[in-house]
């Protein structure tokens, strides 16, 4: 077991997502990945894993305005199986 820190987080409007995946490679800590489920548009959408820094890169690259980005006052710790 180890701990991962999230300094930030995102609110994702998954129902609006068109599944373009532009948000995935710009997330430097690699904490976004595409879902296996699909939304009502029939698209896969991003899901968040622990370790978001609140850098806003995903928001900057999303053509469909699906992200809102927050920075925690105190970082959140997550227990992770290695």
């Amino acid at each position, binding site marked *: 077991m*180890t701990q*991962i820190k*999230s300094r*930030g*987080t*995102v*609110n*994702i*409007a*998954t129902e*609006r997502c*068109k*599944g*373009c*995946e*532009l948000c*995935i*490679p*710009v997330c430097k800590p690699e904490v976004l990945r595409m879902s296996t489920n699909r939304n009502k548009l029939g*698209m896969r959408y991003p*899901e*968040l*894993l*622990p370790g978001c820094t*609140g*850098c*806003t*890169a995903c*928001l*900057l*690259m*999303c*053509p*469909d*305005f*699906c*992200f*809102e*980005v*927050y*920075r*925690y*006052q*105190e970082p*959140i*710790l*997550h*227990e*992770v*199986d290695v």
Partner: protein
Amino acid sequence: MSSGSDILQTDAPPSQPAEKLCAFKPDLLLSEDHHLCPGCGEPIAVRMMLEAIKELECSRRAVGVIGIGCYTALTGIIDTDLVQALHGRAPSVATGTKRMLPNGLVYTLQGDGDMVNEGLQEVIHSAARGENITCILLNNGVFGETGGHMTASTVVGQRTKNTIDGRDAKEHGQPILISEMLAQLSGTAYVARCGVFNASQTVHTKRILRKAFQTQLDGKGFSFVEILTMCPTGWFVPVPEGPDYLENVLGSVHKLGELKCE
């Protein structure tokens, strides 16, 4: 604590104390919903443009003159004053608008088909006259809205609907590099090319837009920003590969940088 293998909940604002760094949409956009394709670069560029206008505190002074292309569909949600121009005529309409409203921040929003094909002389003459306006070009190297055909800025080798084996210089000629062309004119005060193919270049695009608008606010003359944007639909490129294609294929010919800053 949560288990790290868990997918975190992201369907609402966080429950723990947190500062909102950035909202879904910029203040000058009325809605997040639009019908542009998955992976289109145009809404990304428009976000940067609207944030730049807001940061310069020009929301109520800004008047956009809009060309005709996919970006025209965003006029229903852009919250600045707007005029719809005929194809390619936006720089001339902006000239008249600025002369009538000298305190306005007058910008055009045009595509490469609109500006570099259909209305090329409009932008050249407006720039040559040194009109105190800001022209913004969304360059994706295709007539996106009408199906992805070659424009005057399509690069050699680029596949489009009517250059299916790639643009061939012998048959179709060489592309026009509009920023380089306009930078030569003594009427232009600021000319720069940028692209929205990654997050840092997108932030840089906003910086360039702010400089261009500031050029106009300072009364220095014609300012021009060319923004390279993804059009995976027009390019026959898988949607996630759009940014790399833009950087490597269009970006290697339409080179990024500030060409003129007076």
